[in-house]
């Protein structure tokens, strides 16, 4: 063992540059994993902190179907769970627009918290409100007066001070059950400091006493004993005494059971909802970010594959380097096992160094990534950097794994060194057939493909490799895997009977054809929505490995072509011969080198191309799916058209307005009908539609919001968005016809008048809460009610950014829901103009509309209306979407670009190595008559070629993939020339310097010296 150590230490000293490169490569790999870990952990903690902060000190919420929960329930909780909870209180929360009189500022979607100022067992136990001077606010002083308290964040936004006037609308409930907004003026009694329970909803709240609210909203005292939600707190300070999530969830369940009992609710679908809201939010954030983490790690893995190629490359070189030493060691009696141990031991050392480097690299990059992601997704705040034990373990384990994984092949290679040949200095260049191992591996591959075939026949119902067999995600996934394994197996077996090159060409061309076919056609056959990442990943790997191998196998042909091309010029003739021959003489090394670039650039070019295409190429698509609506106006208070004709005002603002349609929307609650009967209702946005909104007097559709049918009868063979536009229109209009037909539907989607028939709804596509039966439960005034989903809408502007799902209901059902009283007073307008979607005039019009509605001197205000209008150009929804999407793609490119660093190091190492081991040959070239410049140029050109092969493969692959995506999404294809030039420049300069520096170094050595070099 002693001599092993000394061998290792001696090698380390001699091979420092190579080791440094390996350590950097491992370090970069580890950096990626560690930074993903840190970034995602930090983000998770950051988001959890801010979202749990906006819950104040609450842990559990209790609500019911009707939105009115009785004081008795609150008392019941206080009596029965006194020892388990810190406080319980009942509140009403309204979402409205606040207008600041003095400054003219307006803020939409502000929560008005209606609270009981004298509630000693509830509110006061949750902590006091303090004002910005640090004094405790005596909240009882705002009782019965038109006073409100405003936390600092909102006060800053509105620019209001103590004593200022604010205005808002508060819904007043009448005895007959209808609701109407009333315009109220309040005085700001004090500004609350942003701490404790004032942090609820990020401090964008207005605190109003219950007694004042009762007088305004419910003068008849009908609902004085009711709240919309009962809030329970399990800790009066979650920062100091956090609450265990499982405990909170268990307690919520316990409370629910006890309440069901108390309320004698023995229905299947209890109307009461008890939710451990803090725990649920935290868990869903963790879950959501975890999938993000998995995605990033997948990308990191790709880069690490590139890193592994680099390290293997360097390791292979060290084996070649030490062939003679190993030969001597072996002849002196070292056993094969000992040779392996030398290499593995070395790998572990390198891995440890790499881990340490990667850990610190990860700290830096992780922090940066966290900031960047924060920025893209507009999370806000500075992320708190979280480093835990897991991070450290990640770094060490990944470092050593990468090192050992890359050390094994060279170790085996070193083990099987032929002592006699090595010591005689025999080098063999001849091409052999793939070894017996390849043959066996071929059979293993065939066996595996049989296994995949069986799996495939199950997931594709026997439709193997037929059109039907490419419909589902799983069928596509296994089809691709099956084809990969089959082609690999057949190719390897074939290679025993033909030349290796022929077999490899066949395999790789097969891989390329299948993957390109998939990108261009196969992907279009997919008729199942869901996460198709895994298919994409397999196709990507097939494409990259296919292109890399096919170029590698035919490197001689490429070399000959370059040689001929360079031979056209007198000056480059000899250089061409030297550099191309030198490149092809070490084929494996060359292939490993350019494949690093090929992998990284394939993804980078894909992301860049897809990014610009989404950014520039989808205006038409967006216009089509939004029914050519240009602006959507959302009013927070419905306006009586008899008093003020809002549509007329819009027509008046701009003569280019061609159509204004309007409807009503209100908040509702929905849940899925699937087996998770216990799932709580979640808030949704309900939109009332009647056919007069959609159709003109002639009965033609005024605009077409395209739907994707889910009724069996309407489902097409193909996904609807892959059809030509007019067919999509026809299908979509049929759906709207059904929706407006006044008919009900069975669960199976048949028109029916039976008692079991369900009324139709249409969902927006992005956040579907429907189950596999395409039914959904909505909360109505009469309890939970089932609806049949007819279709979903994709690319409908508002749904892209609405936090809650949007559900379209036929107008004949509005009486079932709260918030639709005075249905003829619209609060939602669709505006079409003669302008193109992205015309700046559209934005100007939107701004004018907002001004006409919101400003203090508007006609609406003069009529006593306080309207918070939000006029959004559909293009803005799109831009918003594009901003996040392209931001993410940019981030991805940046993240992947760390891989370019690996590629650059790879070029440097290979170049250094090439000239070092060819010192003698270079001396000889000099003796024959090569001057220094020619020597340097040969070195540069060889490295150049490798870099550019990678670049070209990357560009072609990236463009193929992005092109297929644009075809699929029907957006125009744009080539990101700027990015491509950037990658070109990066490759150019790194290859240039990688070749230049060692080239110059060796060219300086006098040829007589170089000739003495024996390797």
């Amino acid at each position, binding site marked *: 063992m002693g001599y092993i150590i000394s061998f290792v230490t001696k090698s380390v000293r001699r091979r420092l540059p190579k080791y440094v490169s390996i350590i950097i490569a491992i370090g970069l790999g580890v950096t990626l994993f560690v930074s993903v870990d840190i970034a995602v952990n930090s983000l998770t903690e950051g988001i959890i902190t801010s979202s749990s902060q906006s819950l104040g000190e609450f842990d559990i919420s209790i609500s019911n179907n009707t939105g009115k929960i009785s004081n008795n329930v609150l008392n019941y909780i206080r009596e029965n769970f006194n020892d388990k909870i810190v406080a319980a209180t009942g509140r009403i929360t309204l979402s409205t627009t606040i207008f600041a009189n003095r400054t003219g500022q307006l803020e939409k979607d502000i929560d008005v918290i209606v609270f009981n100022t004298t509630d000693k067992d509830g509110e006061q136990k949750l902590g006091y409100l303090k004002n910005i001077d640090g004094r405790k606010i005596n909240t009882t002083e705002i009782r019965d007066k038109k006073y409100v308290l405003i936390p600092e964040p909102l006060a800053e936004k509105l620019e209001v001070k103590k004593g200022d006037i604010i205005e808002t609308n508060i819904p007043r409930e009448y005895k007959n059950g209808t609701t109407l907004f009333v315009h109220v003026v309040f005085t700001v009694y004090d500004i609350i400091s942003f701490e404790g329970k004032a942090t609820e909803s990020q401090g964008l709240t207005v605190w109003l006493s219950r007694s004042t609210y009762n007088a305004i909203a419910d003068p008849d005292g009908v609902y004085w004993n009711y709240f919309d939600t009962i809030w329970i707190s399990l800790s009066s300070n979650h920062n100091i005494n956090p609450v265990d999530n499982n405990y909170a969830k268990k307690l919520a369940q316990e409370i629910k059971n006890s309440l069901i009992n108390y309320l004698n609710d023995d229905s299947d679908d209890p109307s009461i909802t008890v939710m451990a809201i803090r725990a649920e939010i935290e868990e869903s954030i963790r879950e959501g970010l975890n999938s993000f983490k998995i995605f990033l790690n997948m990308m990191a893995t790709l880069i690490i594959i590139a890193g592994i190629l680099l390290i293997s490359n360097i390791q292979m070189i060290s084996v070649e380097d030490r062939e003679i030493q190993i030969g001597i060691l072996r002849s002196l009696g070292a056993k094969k096992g000992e040779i392996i141990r030398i290499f593995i031991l070395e790998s572990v050392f390198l891995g440890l160094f790499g881990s340490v480097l990667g850990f610190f690299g990860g700290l830096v990059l992780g922090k940066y990534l966290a900031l960047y992601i924060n920025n893209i997704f507009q999370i806000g705040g500075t992320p708190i950097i979280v480093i835990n034990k897991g991070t450290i373990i990640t770094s060490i384990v990944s470092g050593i794994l990468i090192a050992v994984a890359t050390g094994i092949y060279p170790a085996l290679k070193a083990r099987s060194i032929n002592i006699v040949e090595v010591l005689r200095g*025999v*080098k063999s260049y001849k091409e052999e057939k793939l070894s017996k191992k390849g043959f066996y591996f071929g059979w293993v591959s065939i066996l595996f493909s049989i296994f995949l075939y069986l799996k495939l026949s199950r997931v594709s119902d026997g439709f193997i490799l037929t059109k039907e067999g490419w419909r589902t995600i799983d069928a596509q996934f296994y089809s691709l895997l099956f084809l990969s394994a089959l082609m690999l197996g057949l190719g390897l077996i074939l290679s025993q009977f033909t030349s290796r090159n022929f077999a490899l060409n066949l395999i790789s061309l097969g891989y390329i054809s299948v993957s390109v076919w998939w990108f261009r056609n196969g992907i279009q056959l997919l008729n199942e929505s869901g996460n198709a990442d895994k298919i994409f990943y397999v196709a990507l790997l097939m494409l990259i490995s296919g292109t890399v191998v096919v170029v590698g196998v035919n490197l001689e042909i490429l070399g000959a072509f370059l040689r001929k091309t360079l031979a056209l010029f007198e000056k480059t003739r000899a250089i061409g011969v030297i550099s191309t021959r030198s490149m092809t*003489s070490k084929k494996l090394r060359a292939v490993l080198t350019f494949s690093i670039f090929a992998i990284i650039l394939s993804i980078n070019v894909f992301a860049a191309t897809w990014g610009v295409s989404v950014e520039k190429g989808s205006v038409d698509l967006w216009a089509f799916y939004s029914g050519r609506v240009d602006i959507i106006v959302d009013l927070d208070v419905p306006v009586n058209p008899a008093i003020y004709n809002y549509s007329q005002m819009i027509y008046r603002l701009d003569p280019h307005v061609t159509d204004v349609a309007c409807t009503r929307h209100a908040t509702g609650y929905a849940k899925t009908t699937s087996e998770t009967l216990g799932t709580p209702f979640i808030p949704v946005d309900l939109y009332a539609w009647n056919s007069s909104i959609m159709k003109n007097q002639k009965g033609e559709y005024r605009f077409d919001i395209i739907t994707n049918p889910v009724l069996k009868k309407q489902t097409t063979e193909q996904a609807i968005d892959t059809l030509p536009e007019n067919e999509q229109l026809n299908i979509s209009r049929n759906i709207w016809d059904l929706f407006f037909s006044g008919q009900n539907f069975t669960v199976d989607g048949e028109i029916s008048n039976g008692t079991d028939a369900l009324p139709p709804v249409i969902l927006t596509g992005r956040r579907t809460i429907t189950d596999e039966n395409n039914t959904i439960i909505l909360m109505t005034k009469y309890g939970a009610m089932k609806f049949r989903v007819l279709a979903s809408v994709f690319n409908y502007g508002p749904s892209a950014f609405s936090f809650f799902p949007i559900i379209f209901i036929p107008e004949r059902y509005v009486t079932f829901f709260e918030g639709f009283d005075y249905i003829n007073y619209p609060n939602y307008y669709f505006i079409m103009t003669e302008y193109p979607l992205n015309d700046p005039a559209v934005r100007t019009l939107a701004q004018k509309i907002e001004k006409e509605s919101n400003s203090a001197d508007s006609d609406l205000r003069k009529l006593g209306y306080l309207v918070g209008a939000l006029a959004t150009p559909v293009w803005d929804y799109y831009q918003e979407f594009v901003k996040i999407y392209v931001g993410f793609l940019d981030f991805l490119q940046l993240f992947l670009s760390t891989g370019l660093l690996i590629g650059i190091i790879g070029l440097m190492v290979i170049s250094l190595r090439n000239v070092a081991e060819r010192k003698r040959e270079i001396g000889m070239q000099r003796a024959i008559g090569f*001057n220094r410049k020619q020597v340097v140029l040969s070195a540069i050109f060889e490295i150049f070629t490798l870099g550019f092969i990678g670049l070209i493969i990357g560009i072609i692959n990236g463009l193929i993939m992005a092109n297929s995506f644009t075809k699929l999404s029907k957006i125009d294809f744009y080539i990101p020339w700027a990015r491509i030039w950037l990658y070109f420049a990066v490759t150019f300069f790194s290859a240039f310097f990688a070749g230049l520096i060692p080239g110059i170094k060796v060219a300086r050595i006098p040829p007589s010296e170089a*000739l003495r070099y024996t390797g």
Partner: protein
Amino acid sequence: MSENLVIIKNLHKIYDPEGANVHALRGINLTVKKGEMLAIMGPSGCGKTTLLNLLGGIDKPTKGTIIIDGVDITRLNDDDVTNFRRDRIGYIFQLFNLLDFLPVVENVALPLLLQGYTINSAYEEAKVVLRQMGLGDRVYHYPNQLSGGQAQRVAIARAIITNPAIILGDEPTGDLDTKTSMDIMNLFRRINIQNKQTLIIVTHSRAIAEQCDRIVHIENGVVSKEEIIRGD
């Protein structure tokens, strides 16, 4: 006809690896006539390879001049001496003569490519020379597929292909058996007669040296003895 092609005057070479002065050449004076075939002999380490390197311009002397065809090559800069070497000198090394990543034909054609021949004409020329050397069937082989004698003949082919004024051979028959060595010497003689080229050959073998016109003995970095084998 007996003009001096090479004039070496008071040539010194001191190797100075980390201060350990190795005085390899200590004042060599030598002239070589045009068309002469000269053998250089001497014990190992006496400076034969050093002398040849200086003659070929792949190293610089510490002191002294080397005038070849009227040009003092010790005064040329690197690019000029490289061009001079490319055009006027053919070099055959002591060991490992060929670029092993190039096929035989490219090894031979390389000097022509450097001179600006097109690929086709350079290859054709190389094939002609290789055929003359009896290597017509080895054109597309790689050096490691050749025997020692064949490899040496390829090296000679490369050295003569540009029709240089001087061919320098550092033990061109070093590792070869007597029969092959003699074949190669005959080849040299043929070249010498056909093209009137000057040959300077380092050898340890008396028999080989006796094939030349003159033998120069070097000992301790100076010319110790000269023998004329055959006169003009």
